[in-house]
């Protein structure tokens, strides 16, 4: 179950993982996009870290909302409004029931789909959020499941975002936003939040 502390810890771990792997994220984005996903995410999580360290929080809702606004403002690419919408929706759900992690992540997943209008199979971060939500509902989330979801984006043909301009040429490359979402959930596990 999330607490204020564990949520902040989770997001801090996520930031570290993004910063550590930003070149790889950009490399994935170079193959099928504009090559900036790593730089975007690093900029966003740096701002998020700053915002999370600047104040004390009363609720998980507050933490997620603050994180959302930083990511929304600073990521600077499509993943900005998407992660921003995810965390805003998660904040709202956490305000209603902070004990149900699966519902919180589900809300985030719904937020991303509502914002970006991608469906499972479109080769986007949705292809990680949806399996992760399913696993959480069955109490089964693991690093392997997350890795598999990310890896499963490789053979897909992109239907949304910059990669969709490449059509068939997007096949055979892992989706960058899926990789960064993979980091989000790997650190969720690592942060002992579950």
């Amino acid at each position, binding site marked *: 179950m999330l607490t204020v502390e564990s949520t902040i810890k989770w997001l801090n771990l996520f930031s570290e993982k993004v910063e550590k792997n930003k070149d790889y994220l950009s490399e994935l984005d170079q193959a099928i996009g504009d090559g900036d996903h790593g730089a975007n995410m690093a900029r966003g999580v740096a701002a998020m870290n700053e915002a999370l360290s600047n104040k004390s929080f009363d609720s998980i809702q507050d933490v997620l909302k603050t994180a959302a606004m930083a990511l929304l403002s*600073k990521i600077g*690419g499509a993943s900005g*409004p998407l992660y921003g919408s995810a965390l805003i929706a998660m904040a709202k759900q956490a305000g209603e029931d902070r004990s149900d992690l699966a519902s919180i992540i589900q809300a985030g997943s719904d937020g991303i789909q509502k914002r970006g209008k991608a469906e499972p199979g479109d080769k986007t971060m949705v292809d990680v959020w949806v399996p992760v939500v399913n696993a959480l509902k069955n109490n089964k989330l693991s690093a392997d499941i997350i890795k598999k979801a990310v890896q499963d984006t490789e053979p897909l043909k992109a239907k949304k975002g910059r990669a969709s301009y490449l059509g068939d040429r997007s096949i055979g490359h892992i989706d960058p936003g899926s990789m960064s979402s993979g980091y989000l959930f790997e650190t969720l596990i690592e942060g002992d939040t579950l």
Partner: protein
Amino acid sequence: MSEYGVLLVSHVSEIVEGLTALLKEVASDVSITSAGGTDDGGIGSSFDKVQAAVEANQSGKILAFYDLGSSKMNLEMVKEVTDKEITLFDTAFIESAYTASALLQAGVPIEEIKKQLEPLKIK
């Protein structure tokens, strides 16, 4: 200022600067504001810049045009939190912003303008 304003959202600040100059030639009485590039001036999109451009626009009703997908998502998020009325167009960025601006300056009614923009829908 005309009843409707125009909002331009692009991944690049030079693009909206140039486009604004192009539009001002034919729409000097239309409020044209824009958001180009990321917060720190790079290539991308910025919720904050879009929000600022919406607020800076002198009209309460805004016709919004954008280049690529992430610009649109930021526009939609701003639309959800502003009191202003924003109509988003999935039309050819330069050509539809030009058409709309020229027609607004000419005093053409909004419904007619929307009709003129329909064939330019490509996204």
